[in-house]
C-alpha cells in the first residue's frame, strides 16, 4: 500500500474531526484482477493518536458484479510519540499508524448480495517537506490487506444459475489526503 498524504495544519486540541479522502488501486484474485476504489473516511481524532470513525466508498471491477459500495467502521492508531523510529516527531507526522476497518459491501448487481468486508494494515507517513507549519506533501507506505466475502444467488427459466459464496483477499494500494483537522 502506498499512501500519498497532504496535511497543511496540525491538531492543536485533544479532540478534532478528521476527514481522509482516499483513492485505492485494488489487486485481487478475481477477474478482473485490478480494481479501483474511492473512499472518504472521517471521525474523531483523539490526542493525536486515535481515530474512531466511519468510511464510505465506491468500488469497481473487483470480480463482484462490477460496482459495490463499501460502508465500514474505521479505527486507527497513530504512533505519536516523542521517540519515533526514523525521524524526530511529536505527532502523527513521520510516524507509523495502524488501521482496522470492518463493515459491509453493498452490492445489488445480479447475482451478488450485500457482503462482508474487513481490512487491516500498517503504514508509515513520511513528511519530506516542511515550511513553517506547512507540510507538502507527505506519503504513507505500508501494506493493507482486505478480506471480503459475498453471497450470490440467481435463477432464470426455473433453474438456479448461481448459488454460492465468494471469498477472497486482496492488497490495496492507496493514495490518501488528510483534510485539516477541525479542532473541537
Amino acid at each position, binding site marked *: 500500500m502506498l499512501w500519498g498524504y497532504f496535511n497543511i495544519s496540525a491538531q492543536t486540541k485533544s479532540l478534532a474531526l478528521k476527514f481522509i479522502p482516499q483513492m485505492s488501486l485494488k489487486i485481487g*484474485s478475481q477477474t478482473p484482477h485490478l480494481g479501483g476504489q474511492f473512499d472518504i473516511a472521517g471521525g474523531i481524532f483523539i490526542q493525536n493518536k486515535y481515530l474512531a470513525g466511519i468510511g464510505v466508498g465506491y468500488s469497481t471491477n473487483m470480480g463482484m458484479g462490477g460496482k459495490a459500495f463499501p460502508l465500514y467502521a474505521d479505527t486507527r492508531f497513530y504512533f505519536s510519540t516523542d521517540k519515533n523510529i526514523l525521524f524526530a516527531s511529536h505527532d502523527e507526522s513521520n510516524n507509523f499508524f495502524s488501521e482496522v476497518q470492518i463493515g459491509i459491501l453493498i452490492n445489488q448487481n*445480479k447475482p451478488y448480495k450485500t457482503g462482508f468486508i474487513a481490512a487491516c494494515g500498517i503504514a508509515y507517513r513520511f513528511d519530506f517537506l516542511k515550511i513553517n507549519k506547512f507540510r507538502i506533501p507527505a506519503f504513507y507506505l505500508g*501494506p493493507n490487506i482486505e478480506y471480503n466475502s459475498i453471497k450470490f444467488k440467481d435463477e432464470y427459466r426455473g*433453474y*438456479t444459475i448461481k448459488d454460492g459464496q465468494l*471469498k477472497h483477499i486482496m*492488497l490495496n494500494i492507496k493514495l490518501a489526503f488528510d483534510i485539516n483537522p477541525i479542532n473541537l
Partner: protein
Amino acid sequence: MKIRYKLHFIIVIFSIASCEISLKDNSMAEIISQKKLLDMVNDLRTKGCDCGGTVMPPVKKLDWDYQLERAATSHSIDMKVQGYFSHVSIDGASFADRINGTEYKGSPGGENIAVGYTNEDAVFNGWRNSPGHCMNMMNGGYTDIAVGRSGDYWTMDFGKK
C-alpha cells in the same frame, strides 16, 4: 541484505493478495474459466482466421456479459436435465427468446452449442474447427459473449449492442 528482506516481504504480501480463498457454487452449472474462453475467442478475432475455407478478417474483441451468461447457462442446464440437444428448448423457446427474457440491453446475435466436451480448450477447438460455429465466433457485428456449462453441455451466446 535488508533490501532483500523487504523484497521478500513485498512478494509475500502480493502472493497473499492474489490467493483466492474459495469460490463455492451450488447450482447445476459448472464453474468455467470465463477469462480463458474470452481470451481464446478474442485472440482468434483479433488475428483473423480461416473458417473451413472462408477467410475471416480480424474483428473487434468481445465483452463478457452476465445476462448472456444467464441465457447460456439456463439452456445448458435445460438440455442436460431434459435430455435433448437443440437450439430450440422443449417449450419452443429459441436462443433469441432466451436472451430477450433476460435483462440484456442489446439484441440477440447467435448461439453455439456443444455436448461431450469436458474442458474449455476442447469445446473451443470443437467450435473453431466447425465452419459455422467458427464464423459465429468471428462475426464482426457481435459485441458481447458468454458461455454457460452444465455437465458436458455447453452453450455460447452472442449479442450486439
